[in-house]
């Protein structure tokens, strides 16, 4: 039962992810008004740490890494870290390579991530 639920959630997430990737590959968020805009940007006129992610994903799917970095460098650099987290948590990485988990998700990782996000947030609005 519990295993069935887990598989069900996995299937739903995979389908949604595939649909999202297809949409982001096909449509250009720069040209289409259908993509949601950041409420923080609309409200304040400043970019938040996530602004540009949609355009960056579109660029990444077309292998334009330079453009992706210009749209949202933090997201592009965070992606490998996120994939590492997913692998450690859901695909058995935690059990086999606990030293990797200790290094990347250890004592100071959350602090470092927080500092990086705030620095990126400030710098991207200054430049």
């Amino acid at each position, binding site marked *: 039962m519990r295993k069935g639920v887990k598989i069900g959630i996995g299937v739903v997430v995979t389908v949604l992810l595939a649909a999202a990737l297809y949409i982001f590959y096909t449509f250009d968020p720069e040209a289409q008004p259908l993509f949601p805009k950041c409420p923080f940007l609309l409200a304040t006129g400043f970019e938040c740490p996530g602004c540009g992610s949609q355009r960056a994903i579109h660029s990444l799917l077309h292998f334009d890494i330079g453009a992706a970095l210009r749209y949202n460098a933090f997201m592009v650099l965070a992606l490998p870290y996120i994939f590492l987290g997913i692998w450690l948590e859901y695909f058995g990485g935690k059990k086999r390579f606990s030293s990797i988990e200790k290094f990347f998700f250890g004592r100071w990782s959350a*602090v470092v991530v927080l500092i990086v996000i705030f620095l990126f947030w400030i710098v991207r609005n200054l430049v």
Partner: protein
Amino acid sequence: MEYRNDLEGEGSQYEKDYSPTPPPPPHESSVDTIPPLKPNNWLWQSIVATIVCCLPFGIVGIIFAVKVDSLYFKGQYAESERVAQKAKMWTILAFGVGLIYIIFWAIMAYTGHFEEYMQNILERGASGYNF
């Protein structure tokens, strides 16, 4: 005979007679216990929420992730577990609010109000198609 009385009603009567000071409950002796596993601090999930949903809730999730770790390494395991629940809650909240915002945007896009709404945004000076 003396050691089996922890769980049984009859045994506690037996214990009252022969050992006047009952042993302390095991979870209070914190010195010798093995530390529990570090609770999940939902760090990478809250990073995803911050990037995708573009709302402060993801950052709140990361702040709680920091708290989970610092409390755990200070040895306050129960407190750390409690804060981990909060980290989870804020991360899920961030995803939920982001989802609601996307649905709201989709409804705006497919009803007639979208054009004037867009006009409104552009008049207020927000640039381009940002997220």
